């Protein structure tokens, strides 16, 4: 009887864990990847001057490859990170570019990178070439990190993030008493001929909690280490973030 109970317990725990991992492992992995905002290198119109046959100078336009100025990195401002699609996912590649004139937040590219390449204009944490990344829009964490990198005033962002984090903590803590109530209700009602419903009900509850937490939790990207189980990494990242 004890062996059967042990088997029931191992069976329920093992297959629930495998089921949850099947549902969420990809999302968990994506959580550890840096999020980057990208913009395609496209041809843009830049103002130019043209001297006519009569010697007069006319204002005209020329279309040249250009990227946002945010994309330029490095001490000399000549490095661009771009996202390349490979078999192993989206990988960061470093390009050294030569630049020309600047206009309306865009800078002319005279060589080093082709049009159509996806240049990185912001990320939610430190990035380096060869790293796997995911492309995202210009969200809070990307904006926050990029603004910090540029030395801009981020106090507004930080206050907003603090509020969001506080709300998340309240949500997570709130899940615990609700779970206790759910288990008690399960024990109360899943009796006798309905006993078989107990385990499936708890599994469904577990999945609902996971979905809720996934949809709710917002973490600053810089906090998240490369492996979610790296406790020291969490601590170090959190300390360096100084929210």
């Amino acid at each position, binding site marked *: 009887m004890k*062996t*059967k109970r*042990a*088997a029931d317990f*191992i*069976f329920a725990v*093992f297959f629930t864990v*495998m089921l949850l*991992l*099947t549902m969420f*492992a*990809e999302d*968990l*992995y994506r959580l*550890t990847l840096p999020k980057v905002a990208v913009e395609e290198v496209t041809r843009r119109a830049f103002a130019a001057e043209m001297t006519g046959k009569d010697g007069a100078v006319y204002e005209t336009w020329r279309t040249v490859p250009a990227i946002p100025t945010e994309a330029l990195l490095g001490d000399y401002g000549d490095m661009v990170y771009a996202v390349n699609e490979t078999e192993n996912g989206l990988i960061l590649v470093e390009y050294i570019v030569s630049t020309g004139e600047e206009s309306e937040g865009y800078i002319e590219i005279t060589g080093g990178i082709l049009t159509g390449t996806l240049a990185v204009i912001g990320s939610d944490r430190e990035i380096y070439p060869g790293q796997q990344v995911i492309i995202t829009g210009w969200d809070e964490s990307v904006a926050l990190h990029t603004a910090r990198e540029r030395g801009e005033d981020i106090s507004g962002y930080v206050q907003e993030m603090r509020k969001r984090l506080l709300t998340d903590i309240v949500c997570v803590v709130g899940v615990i008493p609700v779970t206790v109530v759910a288990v008690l209700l399960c024990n109360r009602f899943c009796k006798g001929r309905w006993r078989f419903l107990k385990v499936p009900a708890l599994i469904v509850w577990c999945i609902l909690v996971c979905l809720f937490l996934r949809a709710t939790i917002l973490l600053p990207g810089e906090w998240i280490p490369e*492996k*979610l*189980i790296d406790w020291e990494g969490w601590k170090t990242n959190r300390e360096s973030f100084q929210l």
Partner: protein
Amino acid sequence: MKKVVVKMMLSLCALLFLLPIMLTVVHSFGVQSVDEGNFRLTSLVPSGFSLVGYYDLLIEHFYVLRNFWNSVFYAGSITCLNIAVSVPAAYAFSQARFKGKELLFFFYIMLMMMPLQVTLLPNYIGLRDMKLLDTPLAIVLPSVFAPFSVFLLTQYMKGLEQSYVEAALLETKSVFRIMLQMIVPQLRTCILAVFVFVFAEYWNMVEQADIYLRRETLKPLSGLLAIGEGLTTSEVLAGSVIFMIPIVILYLYFHDSLEVGLESMKL
């Protein structure tokens, strides 16, 4: 004194049998416990505790989970279908009277004795001609008709009282009704034992998956772990531990039936 020595010797033998499993389990939680390059376990105890192997396997190589469910599907469906086919076949071999029955059963046993490698090529050609290669049916279909369970069930059914069947024949002429309502209830422990054997056999299959399937997405976990392509040693060890758990659960559930079944089959 002699008894103590014998006990110690036997314990040592048991430990030796358990050593590979113990090493797999212990080193799957280890930190750099394994010589990655040469795929060798360098010490009995790992230098530290880490869950990195499990993390890397289940989170970073999350596609492995799909192979795990493939294993569950293949082993589960093969076992159920195999038993569904074997029970009527065993009933025919043990109860029915027809010409050439003994010869046919002899061929069945012959087929059972054949190594897997002998039947792989004919099966491959058959599956290729039926355009079933690289589909789940390529794994399931040949395994459903494996003769091992027919042999076991036949041996058990031969031991049943013939008078029960004769009495039942007075009540009904339906062979299926006799089989389902009279024979199968008596076969419960034997069927459970066969269930464990067949499930364990197909849970561990490697060659079939390697030959009949090309797509990695269709392969069972056993096939993936045997090749270990793209996985580090610690990930393979973690995968092996995960791979063991369903079999352990199965044994915990059915160990009583397994012992009784084997005893009654005189194996």
